[in-house]
């Protein structure tokens, strides 16, 4: 009795099945490839846009680079862009303005922000925690122009009356606003960082008889320090990049401040305030774009650092 043979294998690459099934199969594979291409394109979009931002801002400011003396640009405090005879474009005072407002804001925001993060994460339960988190989330949603308005009309008189200074729109005002604006980010990211510390650390400490404060100080803060540092850095990044609030609340004076109640000008506010006055292609116009590149670079570095720190945490 003949036994049926081992069939010759169908040639490699053949699709098995009836012709109708084959057609549907091919359409299936093809359709899937098209959708995948679209998704991949969207995936790259972030890279395209980051480069795009750098490119287009650079393009508008690039012509001035030929005349630019980098040292004078960055460190000179003589900012006279509208002078007819001798226009000067030193942003030193502006950089000091940005840094001083940011640092003062961080001095205020970091303790309060981290303290609030610790409170929400460790000392708070149930309904209170939920409510507090919602309030902080709503705090984060207040637009910066409203903050600037508050600084201008509400805080300015308070500062004049409380500290007996002549001008209420100054570094301190701006710093207060920036602190209130960056705190929500710090609280939410800080809380995530603390939540990421495993409960086993807390339980082990409790078993040893530690109080909550000791747990926080000796166990949690060291364990979460990378995440908390990243939270602070992101707050700094936000503060450096803030425009409207500082535009409205720090005053118009482009000089290095003597006290925290002096008006200052930040890099961001300068662009916002002066771009409207310039004509396209003029030196002043181009310099403002170069300031934009400067800002982009600063926030790029800050965000990169924060990201590397967080990645360092994840690698552990």
């Amino acid at each position, binding site marked *: 009795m003949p036994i049926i043979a081992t069939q010759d294998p169908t040639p490699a690459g053949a699709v098995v099945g009836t012709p109708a099934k084959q057609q549907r199969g091919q359409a299936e594979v093809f359709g899937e490839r098209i959708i995948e291409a679209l998704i991949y394109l969207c995936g790259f979009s972030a890279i395209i846009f980051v480069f795009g931002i750098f490119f287009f801002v650079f393009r508008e400011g690039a012509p001035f680079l030929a005349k630019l003396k980098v040292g004078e640009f960055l460190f000179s405090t003589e900012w006279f862009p509208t002078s007819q005879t001798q226009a000067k474009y030193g942003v030193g005072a502006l950089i000091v303005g940005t840094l001083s407002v940011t640092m003062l804001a961080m001095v205020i925001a970091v303790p309060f922000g981290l303290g609030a993060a610790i409170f929400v994460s*460790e000392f708070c339960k149930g309904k209170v925690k939920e409510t507090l988190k919602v309030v*902080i989330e709503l705090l984060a949603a207040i637009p910066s122009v409203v903050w600037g308005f508050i600084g201008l009309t509400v805080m300015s008189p308070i500062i004049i009356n409380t500290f007996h200074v002549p001008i209420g729109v100054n570094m301190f005002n701006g710093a207060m606003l920036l602190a209130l604006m960056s705190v929500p980010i710090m609280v939410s990211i800080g809380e995530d960082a603390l939540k990421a510390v495993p409960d086993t650390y807390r339980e082990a400490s409790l078993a040893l008889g530690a109080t909550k404060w000791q747990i926080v100080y000796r166990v949690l803060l060291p364990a979460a320090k990378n995440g908390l540092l990243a939270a602070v850095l992101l707050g700094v990044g936000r503060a450096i*990049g803030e425009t409207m609030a500082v535009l409205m609340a720090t005053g118009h004076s482009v000089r290095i401040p003597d006290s925290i109640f002096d008006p200052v000008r930040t890099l961001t506010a300068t662009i916002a305030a002066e771009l409207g006055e310039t004509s396209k292609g003029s030196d002043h116009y181009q310099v403002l774009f170069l300031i934009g590149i400067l800002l982009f670079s600063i926030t790029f570095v*800050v965000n990169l650092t924060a990201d590397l720190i967080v990645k360092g945490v994840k690698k552990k």
Partner: protein
Amino acid sequence: MSAATSNLPATRLFTETPFVRKKQRRELIAQCFFGGMAAAMVIPLILIVGYVVVQGAPSLSWEFLTTNPRLGGIRGGIWSALVGTIYIVTISLCVSAPIGVLSAVYLNEYAKDNWFTRIVNLAVVNLAGVPSIVHGLFGLGAFVYAAGMGKSIVSASLTLSIMTLPVIIASTKEALSAVPMTFREACWNVGATRWQTIRRIVLPNSISGILTGVILQVSRTAGETAPVMLTGVATFKAVESTGLFLYNPITDQCMALSMHLYYIATQASNAAPSLPFAIATVLLCAVLAVNATAIGVRAYLRSRKKW
């Protein structure tokens, strides 16, 4: 008779020594200290916002909301600014939501764990950190001049979409990664393609997170001033009609609530002092309402969780 009980001295498991009481006191102090910090943040804020609302509320009326501003913006209502904000928000989200969601789909579902993915993630983080005024400069250079769209609603909207993109990507990615891997594997095992799995199982079950992320960007877009002041929002624009279709998005500039507030607060000296408070109140209420909606949507969809 058992001798087990009776003669042993009564021992207490926990004795409250002065040391223990000191520890408990420290604990209480710590709680108050941190609670105080949280309160120090929250309470002044509520007071300030309350003050603004109290100052602004008396000027609010249906007429105020639905009349157009006139006389350079210092008189009249805020209708055209409101409508302008709605235009900008709608157009920008119609662009950034699809791109953002698909981008997150790429990152969470397709991207392999290599250096290229790392760069894409880095780009998203950096895009999120770009200052708003630099976005405005980009919009000016790219949309207004290079693409030739001029200062218009589309230029402003596209500028804002690039701004909201990274946040939508991040929140969508989080929503997608909450869907368990076992669902995807079960679909692949029965011959579904990757996209079929995403379309039928992953996306429908992450809609809560995605929607919340998009809604939250609505309020952010409505409040932004710096990117739009350079690219398409004017301090004043006279409009004739009072309906909803006041502008041609491609050619017209528009007014927006955020810009209107800035202008009135800083440059309009003849405006009634309560006007900026009123605008700020409207803006705050809008932002609050949108965010409350997002939180509500999130809570509702979470309660209907399917696994």
